[in-house]
């Protein structure tokens, strides 16, 4: 298990779906279960896509926050 304090930041600002999901997916592939990813997105579509992708691939959404036009999604990597 990784230390949950280690957060890998994925800057997906300006990218349109499904690019933010692809960036998160590629980051997750390199991490072990328990590691966290913080995705910063501007496409509101990511608010649906990243949680949906997490659900079907066994990752867990920890927190979603939106401020102005930026959305931050924190997730915990599951078994892969």
């Amino acid at each position, binding site marked *: 298990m990784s230390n949950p304090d280690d957060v890998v930041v994925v800057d997906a600002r*300006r990218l*349109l*779906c*499904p*690019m933010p*999901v*692809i960036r998160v*997916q*590629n980051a997750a592939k390199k991490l072990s279960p328990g590691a966290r990813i913080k995705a910063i997105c*501007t*496409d*509101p*579509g990511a*608010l*649906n*896509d990243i949680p*949906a*992708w997490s*659900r*079907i*691939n*066994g990752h867990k959404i920890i927190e979603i926050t939106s401020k102005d*036009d930026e959305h931050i999604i924190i997730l915990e990597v599951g078994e892969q």
Partner: protein
Amino acid sequence: MLAARAIQEQGIYVEGLNFFTGFCVEGHTHAIRKKDQNRPKRNNALWVAEQLGIKLHFVDVVEEYKEVLFNPKHGYGANLNPCLDCKIFMVEKALEWIRENDFDFIITGEVIGQRPKSQRKETMPVIARESGAEGLLLRPLCGKNLPATTPEQEGWIDREGLFDFSGRTRKPQMALAKRYGFEEYAQPAGGCCFLTDAPYSVKLADLWKSRGEKEYELDDIMLLKVGRHLRPKPEFKVIISREEGEGKFLQGYKNQYISLKTTSHAGPLALLDGRVEPEDLELAARIVARYSQGRSAEQVELEIREKDGTTRTLSVTPMPPHEIQKEWQL
């Protein structure tokens, strides 16, 4: 969706692959255009995977796809869509993926005769052969009309559980969807990407012509989906937002392109793409002013922003509609 469920029904473990070429219709324009923001923004591939209870992997093929699009061995469809080469390429990538991830065979939802060019009885073996997948490519929805594949010969699956759908009718698919209990079954009847779209293909062809070669970056092809494109001179074009959502999107590119914005009147944001000489700025500004609220004013003031952030103001007379040449509009 149906093909995957048919195979799951035979007790086979399935995972999904979704190839991202950069031209996929998925979500993009919805996300850009403000008026579309209330539409559901779900990604169809993810939604389907969730209905099926399978994992889904996105495969970024943006760079590799260029070769397919630039030189399609089997040519283009009605527009710049190289469907047959595209399918061969995707099956080839799927083959690579199953080898790396220890899967046994590939399934697709193709149906003989469903698409005029790429889904004909003659093209089915072409895809299997040229992708290198050969007998490892199974089409559950029309498999009964095709020679037995490796999964059938090896007894991994039962041929009796496959279907014999053919032609453009979707009735059997609808009936099967109902049988499987899928309340919503949405398969696009047209193409799955912008390359099948005539206006989009015109803009892409123009981009290649203006650059003197078939080349593009991801940003180029994203921008082709947004705004009004006018090419008043061979060397450059003006991309003008049509509403607020597009304006916001174009704003994200202001460090890569010279941008123009009307300041004396409400108006669109515009980007200049190509080689712009100082004397071209007035021409571009007059065009942009024409699409602002000041279109009938004597003078309209615009801010011109260079890529490095330096700005200056220009005052111009909006171009009257009859001076905007038809051939400028892409």
